[in-house]
């Protein structure tokens, strides 16, 4: 069997899994199916728990910013609070609105959930810890994360609720606009790394921290900041959380969703937040590169630092208005990122960098 997956540190586990499954005498194509299903389930489990803990973390951080304690009663500092939330949401009734569009209403959260997890195929969690090192990794991530918009639009349309519709429309407009500066700021990195593969991009930043692209690119900090701003908008977080602006649209696109369907949107939001942070780390902050400690530890450390940054944004800034949001994207971010891209490309051509 051919492994298109680069396992370095987890190799023993997979070997053991492979031995166990193959000892049942399963024929070859089925063997792969079983193995990949197991892999997917593992990934899913890890990410779901991760998202739950991000929710808990966000609640604690917001509480401490606001001089409160946040969840305290359920376990040490409420550590199993979000698990209880998940159990509750699992048993909630699923309300089907009579006027909904049945197909669209049903599949929107599923699609949102799946789209959020698809990106993890090409994110390198550590040296060799990547599911598939595609040679078009960056392109792939850009493509699958955009699925989220369709699902939000579906949710807004399918609910047959005006607030939901407004929320869906807003999110479509927002994500489409911010996709442009986001890609433009990523392209600078791609130009310098000379590859679309995530692993190659990380390899290009080998060594100490001054080799990270944020410091090495001619206008690295600008590219990083524009990426972070665009990523905040992509993940629908304050100050760009207009699709679910609580004070205007009550709950936005997910207003009609209850129980597990709502939980899917909720978890997908946090998974998306982790995704954009992971991409930021991979592209700008050197990915798994670091000293002494294992590579996955460095990766997670950096990613959580970026997540923390996004959370601090959320709990300090007010929300922008929808037209100001568009103006900011098209009149400020797009020219800036494209100028940055052109400058970067020219410098690469001229060789003015280290």
């Amino acid at each position, binding site marked *: 069997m051919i492994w298109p997956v680069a396992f370095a540190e987890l190799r023993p586990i997979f070997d053991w899994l492979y031995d166990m499954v193959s000892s049942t005498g399963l024929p070859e194509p089925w063997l792969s199916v079983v193995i990949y299903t197991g892999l997917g389930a593992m990934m899913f489990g890890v990410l779901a728990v991760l998202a739950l803990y991000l929710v808990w973390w966000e609640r604690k951080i917001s509480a401490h910013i606001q001089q409160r304690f946040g969840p305290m009663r359920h376990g040490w500092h409420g550590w199993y609070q979000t698990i209880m939330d998940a159990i509750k949401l699992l*048993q909630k*009734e699923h309300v089907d609105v009579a006027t909904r569009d049945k197909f669209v209403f049903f599949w929107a959260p599923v699609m949102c959930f799946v789209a959020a997890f698809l990106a993890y195929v090409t994110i390198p969690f550590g040296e060799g810890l990547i599911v598939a090192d595609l040679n078009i990794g960056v392109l792939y991530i850009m493509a699958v994360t955009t699925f989220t918009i369709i699902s939000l639009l579906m949710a807004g349309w399918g609910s047959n609720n005006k607030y939901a519709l407004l929320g869906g429309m807003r999110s479509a407009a927002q994500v489409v606009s911010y996709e442009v500066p986001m890609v433009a700021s990523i392209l600078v990195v791609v130009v310098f790394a000379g590859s679309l593969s995530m692993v190659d991009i990380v390899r290009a930043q080998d060594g100490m921290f001054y080799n990270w692209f944020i410091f090495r690119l001619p206008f690295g900090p600008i590219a990083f900041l524009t990426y972070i701003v665009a990523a905040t908008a992509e993940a629908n977080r304050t100050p760009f959380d207009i699709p679910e602006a609580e004070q205007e649209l009550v709950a936005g696109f997910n207003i009609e969703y209850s129980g597990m369907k709502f939980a899917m949107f909720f978890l997908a939001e946090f998974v998306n937040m982790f995704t954009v942070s992971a991409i930021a780390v991979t592209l700008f902050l050197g990915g798994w590169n670091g000293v002494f400690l294992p590579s996955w530890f460095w990766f997670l450390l950096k990613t959580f630092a970026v997540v923390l940054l996004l959370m601090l944004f959320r709990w300090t800034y007010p929300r922008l208005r929808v037209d100001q949001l568009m103006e900011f994207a098209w009149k400020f971010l797009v020219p800036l990122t494209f100028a940055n891209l052109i400058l970067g490309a020219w410098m690469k051509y001229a060789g003015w960098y280290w």
Partner: protein
Amino acid sequence: MGLIKKVPVYAERIPGGSLVLTTLETVLHQGQAKSLWYLLFGTACCAIELMCTGASRYDFDRLGMIFRASPRQADLIIAAGTITKKMAPRLRRLYDQMAEPRYVIAMGGCTIKGGPFYYDSYAVEKGIDHIVPVDIYIPGCPPRPESLLEGCIHLQEKIKKQKLLDWQEK
């Protein structure tokens, strides 16, 4: 109502099912009790105390309670403040929009029996318990945040004592 209604039906049929049921009962009701998301619903004075309870000094979040603006995602209505005859159909509608399991706390004298507006008022609904089923009554005009927290803890205890089979009858 999804899982919670179907589980006992199937679990009772298999041998040893009631044992599974008891464990499940504990887990499911712990989940319900420990994550009561309340609807952002306030009409009058009690709403200010509700806000204070959510704020730093009293902090609802300690109990795992956060607010949701959409009734679909909420588990609990804290009816904070006077419910007038004009508002009563809206309260009922919000209650109907919520997904089960759902609970109601009547906060303050007005929601219990009309409070100071019982006599001489032509517009106040005399108690909300003939509009929606109420689980916990919290007296006071308005009740202090501590008593609201106490009421919520009582509601949690009440939820934990429920039986899965109770849901079948509803």
